[in-house]
């Protein structure tokens, strides 16, 4: 089920760049159990892709394949024009529940610095050039004001900004974000979504976002990968936000609403039976 539809305005110098992610007949397993199979799709460079599907469908697993952390059991994978490999500096990664795991023992700035220099062995001071890149990344996400604070002192939205700064500090071309909006209030959700839009527009980053709620992301999504019946499928976002498909996907009635302004919403269509 390959689709290379190029929707909406794409101002990237796209054509010549290799796709961000190519799956060709890919199956993955964990502990001998197939998670999903027959994944065949292409994510073009510059897309903002929602990765959706019910719990346990293997959304995070897809990221682990792209990061080279999990070998596939069948098929071929290509990330940014090359085979997946661990430690790919062209990918920025923000794991799920990321911020909850971080404690009291690290400042925001130092965490971002680790994204740049954390894999280097040996005694070496952070160079002024590296420090400047960390400052830039912090400024880009609007985190300068709380850069010197400990991660545990920051709100969920602030922590998520710092995590994104860490993911882009080494000039990642592909960002993998696992549930970046979980546990954020509406305003913080919108600010992170706006940040993702800026990242795509101004830094020409390809973004894949795992999300269980599509709504807050709809303004920036160009495509979606949805895991349905044990297989990943890819399509442009307009084709995915359909009542029938979403209802099938989530196994519960989902409605789609288009407002007069052209905004798209999904909603749980189940209603309390009238007495």
């Amino acid at each position, binding site marked *: 089920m390959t689709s290379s539809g190029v929707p909406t305005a794409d101002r990237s110098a796209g054509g010549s760049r290799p796709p961000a992610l190519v799956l060709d007949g890919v199956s993955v397993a964990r502990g001998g159990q197939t998670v999903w199979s027959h994944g065949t799709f292409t994510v073009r460079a510059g897309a903002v892709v929602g990765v959706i599907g019910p719990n346990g469908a293997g959304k995070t697993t897809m990221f682990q394949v792209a990061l080279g952390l999990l070998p596939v059991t069948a098929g071929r994978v290509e990330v940014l024009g090359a085979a997946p490999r*661990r430690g790919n500096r062209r990918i920025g990664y923000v794991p799920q529940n990321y911020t909850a795991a971080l404690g009291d023992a690290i400042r925001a700035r130092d965490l971002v610095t680790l994204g740049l220099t954390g*894999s280097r062995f040996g005694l070496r001071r952070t160079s002024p050039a590296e420090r400047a890149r960390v400052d830039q990344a912090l400024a880009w996400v609007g985190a300068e004001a709380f850069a010197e604070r400990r991660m545990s002192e920051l709100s*969920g939205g602030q922590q998520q900004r710092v995590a994104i700064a860490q993911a882009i500090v080494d000039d990642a071309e592909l960002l993998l974000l696992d549930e970046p909006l979980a546990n954020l209030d509406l305003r913080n959700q919108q600010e992170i979504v706006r940040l993702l839009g800026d990242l795509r527009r101004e830094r020409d980053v390809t973004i894949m976002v795992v999300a269980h709620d599509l709504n807050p992301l709809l303004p920036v999504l160009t495509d979606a990968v949805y895991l349905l019946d044990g297989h990943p499928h890819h399509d442009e976002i307009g084709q995915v936000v359909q009542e029938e498909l979403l209802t099938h996907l989530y196994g519960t009635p989902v409605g789609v609403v288009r407002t007069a302004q052209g905004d798209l919403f999904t909603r749980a269509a189940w209603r309390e039976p009238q007495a």
Partner: protein
Amino acid sequence: MTLLAVEFQSNWLDVLQTTFMRNALIGGSLVAVAAGLLGYFVITRQNAFAAHALAHIGFPGATGAILLGVPVTLGLAVFCVGGGLLIGLFGRRVADREMATGTILALATAVGVLFASLASANAGTTTSVLFGNLLAISEDQLLVFAAFTAAVVGTLAVLARPLVFASVDPAVAEARGVPVRALGIAFVVLLALTITMAVQVVGTLLLFALVVTPAATALRITARPVRVAALAVAIALGSVWGGLVLSAMVDLPPSFFIVSLAVLAWLAVLLVPGGRRATPARAPVDNHHPH
């Protein structure tokens, strides 16, 4: 005062210049450096319980060494490193690790008691393993301590950055190509070497105060890894030196004073108003940053 057998020693300055006091000072300082440096990682890796357990796992190593007539340091080192590797092999999930660690801890203590009784070790020997006997450090032990501390400092110098990354942010570190698993094993070996030394200074039961407490104190003042390490080393050194001086002044075992000083420093930082909060931070309201 004689009732409590605590008497001020007017000759304490002379006592400090004796050979056993000098050895104690050097040995204690070496341990303080290694323990202070590792403390940050013990806390960020949530290994405090494992550190405590390793000390207990050393107990049968020490009593077994007495039984076999080999150096206590050797027995301690073999059991601590072996136990560390064993704990490291059990799942990475903290919950799994805690169950495995606790079970091994209980078994080790039981075996330690068995060895002690088989070796018909006197109560004094067992006591010095449980509570440390810094004043009995020999010159041979000092050489071993120096080698262990050099190994800890040298290895940390090479591993520092990736180890910080793997400790505070393991999922991203792994994705970035940091060998998280191998670093974990290297760390537990360093920890085992440090605990081998620390057991001989403050003993199995009091070890926490030297390996975890100074770093916990430092972490309340700063979160910058290098500063935490420096401050933790300073606190550990201060506790050892102060403890030895006090011990010379009143002629009582130094373990009590060393541990008390480390705990006092922790309490002081905990209670000082304007210092860092005493409870885990509540996330404050977002600074608004429209992009």
